[in-house]
């Protein structure tokens, strides 16, 4: 029975199917709202589904200079780690797996999709991909420091002296004392996290790695067919996973007691967050240069997170 529950967790509810569907819906919302902001009609909400299935049916071409095995395996590895990550993130108390320090596991799992993109792009052998790989790696370095500081502040706030690195405990702490965002000392950290999300997902001002107008999608340039569909799906899933991680860390104080209702609330919050931190910023800003991006994250965003960490450590 427990194995059935596990399989259900993996394949249907917090896992595979749920993440894919909600992720693609979020991507659709993003495109639709963006279009409205730019006074366009925009595609239908389910357009990402059409795109995904269409790409799945296209032929896959492996370039001459590519290493075939790595080139084809990269999207699968990224996809797997995203599914596993979702199993660790509690939905207002309901999570498939939990450990005493699953936050660190999440932190490492978060790097894998980026690494998959980098290695896959690198394996394609294209010079454009080479430049994209370089930029993706620098982006990864940029947001990793603020991310660690944010996680550390939340852990300290939730656990007091016994730094708490279990996401489940963080959620139950919020249910006891109010959502993380209601604690004044965590507000800078929440802002920093909101800025980390678009870089992690790779949307407009921070999409230097894929900059379509200069390096034609960078690491993805040679991809076609099913692997490209997987990468597009990965991006959509990242939207959902990052926003639900934010929800878990800062908006975890809600619990209706019914898992299904909780999931609906989570999806609603994720849509709001997507519009707030991805679509809105996308619509009003232009792409940064890579060195500006690095400076922005290590000075402004990391600064916000450090503020929060110091406030938390002082017990405010």
């Amino acid at each position, binding site marked *: 029975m427990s194995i059935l529950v596990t399989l259900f967790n993996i394949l249907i509810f917090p896992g595979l199917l749920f993440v894919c569907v909600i992720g693609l819906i979020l991507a659709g919302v993003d495109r639709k709202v963006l279009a409205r902001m730019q006074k366009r009609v925009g595609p239908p909400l389910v357009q990402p589904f059409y795109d995904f299935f269409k790409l799945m049916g296209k032929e896959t071409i492996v370039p001459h200079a590519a290493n075939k095995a790595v080139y084809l395996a990269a*999207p699968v590895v990224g996809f797997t780690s995203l599914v596993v990550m979702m199993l660790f993130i509690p939905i207002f108390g309901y999570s498939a797996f939990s450990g005493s320090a699953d936050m660190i596991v999440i932190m490492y799992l978060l790097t894998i999709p980026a690494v998959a993109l980098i290695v896959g792009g690198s394996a394609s052998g294209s010079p454009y991909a080479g430049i994209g790989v370089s930029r993706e790696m620098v982006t990864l370095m940029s947001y990793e420091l603020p991310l660690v500081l944010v996680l550390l502040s939340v852990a300290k706030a939730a656990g007091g002296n016994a730094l708490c690195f279990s996401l489940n405990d963080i959620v139950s702490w919020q249910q006891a004392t109010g959502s993380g965002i209601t604690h004044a000392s965590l507000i800078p950290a929440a802002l920093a996290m909101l800025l980390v999300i678009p870089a992690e997902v790779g949307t407009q001002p921070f999409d230097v790695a894929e900059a379509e107008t200069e390096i034609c999608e960078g690491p993805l340039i040679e991809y076609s067919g099913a692997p490209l569909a997987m990468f597009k799906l990965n991006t959509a899933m990242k939207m959902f996973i990052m926003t639900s991680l934010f929800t878990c860390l800062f908006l975890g104080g809600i619990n209706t007691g019914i898992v299904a209702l909780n999931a609906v609330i989570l999806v609603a919050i994720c849509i709001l967050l997507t519009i707030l931190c991805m679509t809105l910023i996308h619509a009003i800003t232009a792409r940064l240069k890579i060195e500006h991006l690095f400076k922005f994250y290590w000075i402004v965003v990391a600064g916000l997170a450090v503020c929060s960490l110091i406030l938390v450590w002082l017990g405010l």
Partner: protein
Amino acid sequence: MSYIHFPVLAVMLLFMGAFLTVVFGRHNQGVRVGICTVTSVGAFALIAALIKPVMLGGEVISYWMGNWSPVEGYAIGIGYEVDQLGLFFALLVVATVLLSAIYSIKYMENDSSLDFYYVLFQMLAGGVLGLVLTGDVFNMFIMIEIMTFSAVGLTAFRNHKWGAVEAAFKYLIIGSIGSSMVLFGVAILYAQCHTLNMAQLSSILSGNNSPATIMAFALMFTGLAVKAFIVPFHAPAADSYAAAPTSISMVFSGMVNKAGVYGMIRLVYIIFRAMDSSALQMLMVVFGCVTMFVGVTMALAQHDFKRLLAFHSISQIGYVITAAGLGTALGLTGGLFHAMNHTLFKGLLFLCAGAVLKQAGTTNLDQLGGLSKRMPKTTICFLVGAFSISGLPPFNGFASKWLIYQAAFAKAVESGKIIYAFVTVIAVIVSVMTLASFIKVTQAAFFGQLPARLNDVQEAPTLMLVPMWIMSILCVLSGIFYNVVDKYLLAPATDAAINVTNYIDTMMGGGYAAAAGVRNIAIAPAEFSYWNPILWLVLFIVVLAAAFIVMITGKSDRGEILCAETDVEDGKYATFFSGEHSLPSHVAGSDLFWGFKKDWKKYFHVIEGLHSGIVSDYALWAVAASAVIVIVMFGFMR
């Protein structure tokens, strides 16, 4: 009880091998290889046979040379003593030696004067093995010197290539400063305690430090830190690892700097039992963090494959020192685990670099590219090593780094000092930068486009691939079954380092430790709380399912995987989608991270200026750092 002779036999076997190579191996390559194989396999077998009594049975083996056992509670003779900590490092040593010996056969086939190579190689192996097994501080000094000599000789082995002699000279000068400090410390200790036996020193020194013993401690600490190449002493390491033949670079990073780490752990945990001093903890953690950071940033700036790996060795040793410096059982377990993993993945990476050097003729990242088409097996091994060192789950680097972070948090909680929480931040950033520099190598050497002059590169010979496969498999296995590794290797070793009663009693006779007031502390077992077998099983299923989807949809009649290589005559596939012709337009390693380097221009300018390459500058760093260590010890240790 015959196994009490095994440690001495293993050391003597390697030294005898060196001697026999001089006598019989001058002209015949077969004899040399035969002797070396026999000695390295023999040493491996002898040490591996000790796992059962020592690691599982909890026994400590003592052996008095010439049967000079202690008289009236005073150790007169030279004693060998194998506890779990020593055996743990001895296993790393013999495994490294065995794999390197296999690799050398093909790798060194084009060099001349191979008799010298094998003599020095076996001397080095015997020296390091003796160092980790001995129970006598002066004997330890001798072994350090043998190790340094052979290491210098091997660094200069390819002395027709530029850099080898220069690197050897720097290594010798900085190394001899370190050895002198160890000797000075040993002399002061003897003057104070009238014994050279580690067990007896441990029982005498516990809790009654005089200024003289503090001085001795500071000097020995510095000397062993030089041997471990932690940061102010690291410059010759980068040079010599890059200049030595690659089979030796692997030995250097796999066991020679581990010998220094072992010496430091033995010194602070067992001989002086000083780890409850918070100043010493802070000193080691600060040194460790600086080592991590400087090592990895210097690695980002390198253009040479082997030199880049050398700086990563330095950086990873920083993790070990930081973890050991936390002074907790959990930290030490993490440190030992990382030391072991470092031996595995860095050895593997060096072997890959050696394969590239042998097959493609260069390790300059700006001249390589696209080798994955020609050396696919090497590429897979390299990726396993790169992911392990970057700490991606489920490889072994993740497990040990995870333990180190956990130990640092626990320490921050326990001591209430926020600085230990920042250790975690530094460790994570260093981990990401490690990943970045390996992405650079991957892109510059293995992926990207194949330059025309590398067109006829072949895959490495099987005899070179075998050690690489073994190490790759070990990297994955120790990452997945780390609880087994913990139970049978790490937990006994940590226990031996923290509870020394058994060590002292075995050497000096029962009840000796209790009489000197040495007591055991119970330690909680390390918890790998992210271990969940079902999770990993299911993860495997998901991988398979996802791969299945991709393959099925890719190969159905609606679309298929077209491999451009088979249709290279067809003009359609000779170009990239981007419209570029497949002409060599490779993005090489040196400028890959300019976006990052531009923001850090000033830092890189300063740090590269400091690595000036002038031996007297390096000596100045070493002397200044030892002065700092002495001052800190006198200022803050009781």
